């Protein structure tokens, strides 16, 4: 098989984290997302994988190297095969970790310790390692044994209870919310720890709780309760400081979002909708009045938007200084002209040696890392990792493969 982009070539990837080596033993989304962010900043990120314990997201395709979800969250990374459950595989893993700056794991609670790769074991071979462990509830504590998927994080973290229609059972966020958020929090913590390591040589253990990560996205709501005991029942699209605020139907089943953030913005909207009569309507003169008469206010706005074209509405609202944007469905999202026109998508080499677009980082920066390749084939970088990094001879590598250590 061809190697699409030699790992050695990628050493000159640039970016602020060039020269940082990250090793990950991660599954599905949250852990891989952490590694992806670090890779997007220029780190060399090595996925340790094995046919005997494959990331389940590789299985959502007949070809494990072409599984679409897997490819989406693992671009720019390297892959080495190591069965860490074999004694030799574990030894090689420790050797690899001895050469690393950061380690990321998000296996099930307790699994990494059972594999003999817990922090206490690993720090013996590399006291400078930044060891990042991601779990639903973190590593320790009375509820750490519990497990769940992203919507469980959202329910536990206080997020789901806040999303719903007034007076109904909470609905929660979209089911996809939670993993990537958690992975981002972990990446930030890891980089702060890297700076400490650079200055002192000292590594550390970072214990990330996905549930707390989601609580952090509603920090002010929790703070409100802490300060004055306020409750936060579902309130549809209401906002304490804005009215109107929400999603409004437009022509052909489309929706737009409108957020009126000042009395001035309301006057501008009122003029568009109903001219001077609505501008002067005392029921909506200031925020408290608009909140009091929200039902009628919403009805008036909806009636106006319903028969109009979403994009035309956004254009006219924006030109009047009113915060508005179309609510994008998945057809709109993949065709977003602003993103395609602004360099957000990057063309990289995929496992077949062909160009494919990937979603780039959320940031643009001067002196960025160069994004060069898509997600790796299983074991694509065995020669580089086992040979160049660990110094294992070709014949010894053949034996390791035959013995089922590097499968």
């Amino acid at each position: 098989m061809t190697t699409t982009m030699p790992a050695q070539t990628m050493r000159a990837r640039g970016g602020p984290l060039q020269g940082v080596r990250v090793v990950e033993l991660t599954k599905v989304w949250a852990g891989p997302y952490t590694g992806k962010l670090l890779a997007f900043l220029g780190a060399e990120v090595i996925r340790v994988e094995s046919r005997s314990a494959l990331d389940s997201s590789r299985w959502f395709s007949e070809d494990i190297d072409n599984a679409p979800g897997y490819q989406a969250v693992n671009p720019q990374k390297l892959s080495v095969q190591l069965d860490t459950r074999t004694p030799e595989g574990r030894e090689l893993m420790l050797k690899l970790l001895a050469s690393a700056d950061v380690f990321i794991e998000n296996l099930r609670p307790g699994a990494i310790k059972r594999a003999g790769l817990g922090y206490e074991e690993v720090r013996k071979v590399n006291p400078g390692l930044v060891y990042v462990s991601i779990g639903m509830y973190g590593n320790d504590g009375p509820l750490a044994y519990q497990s769940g998927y992203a919507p469980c994080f959202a329910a536990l973290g206080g997020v789901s209870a806040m999303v719903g229609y007034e007076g109904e059972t909470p609905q929660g966020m979209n089911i996809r919310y939670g993993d990537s958020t958690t992975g981002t929090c972990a990446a930030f913590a890891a980089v702060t720890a890297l700076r400490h390591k650079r200055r002192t040589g000292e590594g550390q253990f970072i214990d990330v709780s996905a549930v707390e990560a989601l609580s952090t996205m509603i920090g002010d709501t929790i703070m409100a309760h802490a300060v004055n005991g306020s409750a936060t029942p579902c309130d549809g699209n209401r906002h304490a400081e804005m009215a109107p605020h929400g999603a409004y139907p437009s022509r052909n089943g489309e929706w737009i979002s409108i957020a009126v953030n000042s009395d001035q913005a309301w006057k501008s909207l009122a003029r568009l909708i109903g001219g001077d009569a609505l501008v002067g309507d005392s029921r909506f003169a200031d925020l408290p009045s608009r909140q009091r008469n929200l039902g009628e206010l919403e009805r008036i706005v909806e009636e106006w938007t319903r028969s109009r074209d979403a994009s035309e509405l956004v254009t006219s609202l924006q030109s009047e200084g009113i915060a508005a944007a179309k609510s994008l469905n998945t057809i709109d999202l993949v065709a977003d002209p602003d993103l395609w026109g602004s360099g957000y998508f990057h063309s990289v080499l995929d496992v077949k040696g062909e160009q494919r677009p990937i979603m780039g980082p959320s940031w643009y920066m001067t002196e960025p890392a160069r994004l060069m390749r898509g997600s790796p084939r299983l074991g694509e970088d065995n020669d580089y990792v086992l040979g160049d990094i660990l110094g294992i001879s070709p014949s010894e590598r053949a034996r390791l493969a035959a013995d089922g250590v590097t499968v």
Partner: protein
Amino acid sequence: MTSTNPSALAGLRIVELAEGVAGEFCGKLLSDFGAEVIKIERPCGSPVRRLSPFGRGEAPENSALFAYANTSKRSVVLDLETEAGRSVLEKLLLRADAVVDDHEPGWLARYGIDPAGIPESHPGLVLCSITPFGQDAGETQRHAEDLNVFHASGWGYHTPSGNARGRTPLKGAGRFLASYEAAFDAALCMTAALMDREAGGPGRFIDVSAHRVLYSRLDYVLGQMIIGDMDVSEAHTALDLGGPAAVLPCRDGFVYVWLSDETMWCELRRMIGDAPWMDEDFPPNWLQLACTTDRVNRTRRHLSEWLATQDKHAVSEEAQKRGVMIVPVNNPEDLMASPQYRFREYFHRLEHPVLGEALYPTVPYRMSATPPMPSQPAPLLGGDTQAVVSELGGQA
């Protein structure tokens, strides 16, 4: 509260020009790690000081939102409309390692900090801008709140999940989710850039768009859709996974139930004692192979009847011990009482001179060597002006 732990970002000097939640929260992420963050405020204070929730006391010091997003910072009042104000800012920039801003594109250049000219005007500076749609925002993206970013990135149209009937999409949790998410990307990039600069690397301009942040948070799905590996449509359910997973009511609140395979179905069956309804046209592997709307609805209905006799924490604990994925739908009160949050010390007690004492939510990572911790409450407006100006060798 004093700490004997070293701080991960000690010695870094950051000037915060931001006046919104996104930039202020980014500054807080850095200041709680020990960076010196000097917050520049206009004479009437950051607009965030006028946002709810409010505790005791009066404006501009009674906003619990401001108190939350500005721990461990210093506040310096400068009128940037005056020559004197801009001159102090310039002195602060000369000794700063980084700047965080969240004003609209063009604002920085008006005050002599043109992102394009930064390498010449302020060599070595790390300048980070957080905006709803980035520096290159188009004409129809100029006015945006978090709600608009939420909808423009795909989350809005698809919230909540299971919205097959096309009801009004919902705003998402809280007021500032997009801002907090963007703040994390900004803090991540700034820290990486600062570390690189300490090793001899260049200053950098970093342009974070909350829109691209939220779009990127959907990478697992959108990354498949952009290359045609997953279908796109006008459905509000296009991001959903299907199945009976849902928030369901119980005796004292709500729980979230996740069911996706045969093992979970069998465990659930054991837990609720072989309920007769589970034998009515439910093949054991129906969750994976025969997940019809009818079965989903019947499952939810019967589970709701069972849950009506259960309490959310007790039933969740019992389920988790059996490997059934049921969790309580927590509210802030539950979080403050959570034994897990207490164990991990997620809340941190701080005494604010006006708001008084309160438990502040902190951050989701426990760190063995450099634990982040709010070192002091949010500053009073201009509380550090005198001290900072005299450090610069001038007079206030």
